[in-house]
């Protein structure tokens, strides 16, 4: 049931992207999210597309798997497209179909916005698919370290994040298990009238909340029992190492940025 979900899921493999330093990956994603807004014509969107699929290819994540996991999101993308098509009323009239009127600007904007959405989703999934939660947190903590000067709780944030990421799969398993237990008691989650299906969420959510709170408490006790006392003076088992490939990928991104500046309308 929950098995097709790919958000926050790490797929171990031996690819260039997997081996990159999490700091460079985080930087790339952050910059990518910024520069994607530079694209404003067909050629620049095509460039962003080429770059996205270049990264995707390097990661060796099977496309079929990615497609299966992203299918629900693709519907959302499609929905955005349709909204734009129907409600933008600028430019030349292209099609008139009874009450439905589609304008040139609607097509342009619809395609652009859904493409942007689509590329963003692909790139961010790529980050979590190729980087283990621990690496992501280590990377973030190191990148944000300067903020400690202004008393921003970097370590605590990173810890919170790594715990949340760590427990996503557990929560999914738990959800699956409780769904099955309630289905065995006659609950129908995926058929029947809408009202019934909404009601079916209660026997799922309450046990999930109860077990999450219990688990949080147990985790806190276990951490204290093992002497956890916050980030002060804490050393790291895994050392991050910045390699030539990381610099190279940032250079590629810089080139992409320059091209976008040159080619945008």
């Amino acid at each position, binding site marked *: 049931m929950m*098995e*097709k979900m790919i958000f926050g899921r790490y797929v171990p493999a031996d690819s260039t992207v997997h081996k990159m330093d999490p700091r460079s990956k985080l930087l790339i994603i952050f910059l990518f999210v910024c520069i994607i807004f530079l694209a404003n014509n067909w050629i620049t969107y095509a460039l962003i597309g080429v770059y996205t699929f270049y990264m995707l290819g390097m990661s060796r994540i099977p496309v079929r798997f990615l497609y299966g996991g992203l299918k629900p999101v693709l519907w959302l993308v499609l929905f955005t497209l349709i909204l734009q098509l129907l409600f933008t009323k600028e430019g030349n009239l292209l099609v008139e179909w009874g009450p439905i009127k589609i304008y040139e600007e609607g097509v342009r904007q619809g395609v652009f916005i859904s493409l942007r959405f689509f590329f963003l989703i692909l790139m961010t999934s790529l980050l979590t698919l190729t980087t283990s939660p621990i690496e992501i947190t280590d990377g973030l903590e190191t990148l944000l370290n300067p903020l400690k000067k202004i008393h921003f709780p970097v370590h605590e944030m990173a810890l919170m994040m790594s715990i949340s990421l760590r427990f996503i799969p557990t929560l999914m398993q738990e959800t699956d298990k409780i769904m099955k*237990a309630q289905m*065995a008691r006659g609950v129908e989650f995926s058929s029947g009238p809408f009202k019934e299906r909404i009601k079916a969420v209660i026997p799922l959510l309450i046990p999930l909340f109860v077990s999450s709170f219990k688990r949080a408490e147990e985790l806190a006790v276990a951490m204290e029992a093992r002497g956890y006392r916050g980030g002060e003076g804490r050393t790291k088992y895994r050392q991050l190492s910045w390699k030539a490939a990381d610099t190279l990928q940032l250079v590629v991104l810089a080139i992409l940025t320059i091209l976008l500046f040159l080619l945008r309308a």
Partner: protein
Amino acid sequence: MDISLQQVEYRYQANTPFERLAIEDVSIDIPAGTFMAIIGHTGSGKSTVLQHLNALLLPSKGIVKIGNHEIKAEQKNKNLKQVRQKVGIVFQFPEHQLFEETVEKDIMFGPMNFGVSADEARERAHRALKQVGLAEDILEKSPFDLSGGQMRRVAIAGVLAMEPDVIVLDEPTAGLDPRGRNEIMEMFYTLHRERQLSTILVTHSMEDAARYADQIVIMRQGKVAKKGTPEEIFSDPIDLVEMGLDVPEVVRFQLKLEEKTGIKLEKIYLSIEELSSAVTEVLSRGVRS
């Protein structure tokens, strides 16, 4: 209600990089009224098999027959709810499924989902509560205020109140104290005898398997490694030990005894009473001759 699995295969997360073959070529027949024990190591596929018995998992290959329902791979299956009413599952740690405000409401939840009236469901809740050995004053309490053992019993009562023809138990006594364990197993055994309830029990306890089951299935790495009556299964203890499984204490005792004294008994005995009378007989014969 008869259940049979025919060459069933199941893959978790099929068509993803996480694809995992959990069981393959599993064929098991469970005629109505059988008490079957399934044993095997963790990860050998026991829970996966169980979830096929009431169509919570649909086979990737093969056929599952549950009464008149035939469930095949790659086929739209309707009326699964009917199947689920007939086959009740008590999952591992069933107390995790409790959610209602009161114990009574939680036990009534299953029957009412299957269209039983509130009055009838309440009656069943009272009956089920008695069966699992809890007092009525618990009915108005919140299930979250109970002890672990009580929660377990309430959750079991919630499944019994559905009045299924077949009951499927996934390690129902895991994590309980020895006394609670015995009480719960005896309760399931009584139900099985009195109502001819087919019972399928996954357990790690060879003692329970030997004491209660008519049929034993041993799972190993997703396949059925062995099946037969307890006598057949435990008559070849060497085989079991090679699979890394235990033999019941009684059998272990008999084997040691035979090894130490050189006396060979007629067959493998599964209860202390049978073994002791057999030993007494052999010894008295020995004295006479």
